[in-house]
C-alpha cells in the first residue's frame, strides 16, 4: 500500500507567527543557536495501489491539503 508523507509550511515570504514565538522561547531556554523556526503540518495519506500515487497526491495538495496562496508543500511516497 503506497503511503505518502506530506509536509506543508507557510511560504518563506510569510511571517510565521507561531514559529517566531517558538524561536523566542528556545532562545530563552538557552538554545541561542536557533536562527529561525517554521511551524507546519505533517500528513500521512495511505492509498490503494491503483494509479500513480505522485499524480494523486499532487492533485490533493493543489485542491485541498495546501492553500497555494500561502503555503508550500513537499511529499515522499513509500511502498
Amino acid at each position, binding site marked *: 500500500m503506497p503511503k505518502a508523507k506530506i509536509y506543508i509550511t*507557510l511560504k518563506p*515570504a*510569510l*511571517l510565521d*507567527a*507561531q514559529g517566531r*514565538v517558538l524561536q523566542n522561547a528556545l532562545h530563552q531556554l538557552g538554545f541561542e543557536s536557533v536562527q529561525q523556526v517554521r511551524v507546519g*503540518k505533517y500528513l500521512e495519506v495511505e492509498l490503494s495501489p491503483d494509479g500513480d500515487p505522485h499524480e494523486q497526491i499532487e492533485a490533493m495538495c493543489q485542491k*485541498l*491539503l495546501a*492553500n497555494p*496562496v*500561502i503555503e508550500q508543500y513537499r511529499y515522499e511516497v513509500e511502498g
Partner: protein
Amino acid sequence: MKAGVIVFPGSNCDRDAYHALRDVLGYDTEYLWHADARNLNDYRLIIVPGGFSYGDYLRPGAIARFARIMDSVRDYAARGGLVLGVCNGFQILCEAGLLPGALTRNLSLKFRCKPVHIRVENAETPFTRRYRPGEVLQIPIAHGDGRYVCDETTLQQLRANGQIIFRYCSPTGELGEEWNPNGSVDHIAGVANAQFNVLGMMPHPERACELLLGSEDGRRLLAVS
C-alpha cells in the same frame, strides 16, 4: 426583498445575521443549508456567516468551500449576485477563490474579540455606497485567524482597483500598527472582488445593527435593497 444566510456545520453567526436581516432590516430571510444546491436568482443578498465551519479542520474555510451550496453561491456570484462573507465567511470565500488572498493566524496568536474601528476606503460599492468615503465605523471583531495576506502583485492590483474596502484604523481614522488587531497587510479589514459584488470582511456588521448592542454602524452595509 429576499436574503439568505448559509448554514454550515459549525457556523455560529448565522443566527446573528438572520436576526439582523429579518428583525432589524425587515427582509424576507431564509437559512440555506450547506448540503443543498439551490437556485439563488431571486435573492438580493447572500451572507456566508462567521463561525467555525467544519471545526476549522486543516485551515479555516478549507472544507466548507466544497459544500454543495457553494456551487450555487459561485453561480449566483458569477451572475452578479451580492455575496457578503463575514469572518469565517471571508475565509471561506478566499478558500473558494471568490476573493483574492488568504487569512492566516493573528500575529499576536491570540483570539481577538473586541470592538474595532474601520475606515470606508471605497464608498462606491453596492455594500458601502450608503457610507461617506473615509467614514469611520465601529464594528466588533472575534477571530483568531484574521491576518489578511496576499502576494505583492495582488496587493498592487487591490490598491489600484479600489478593492480594499475597509482598513483598520483609530477612532478618528488614522492608520497605525496599534490599530491593526491581527497584523493584516496594509491594515486590510475587508476586500471585494474586481466586480464589487462579493465582499469579505473580518469585522461583524451583523453584530453592529442596533444601538442596544453598542453600534449600528453595520446596518447600512446590509441595507442593500
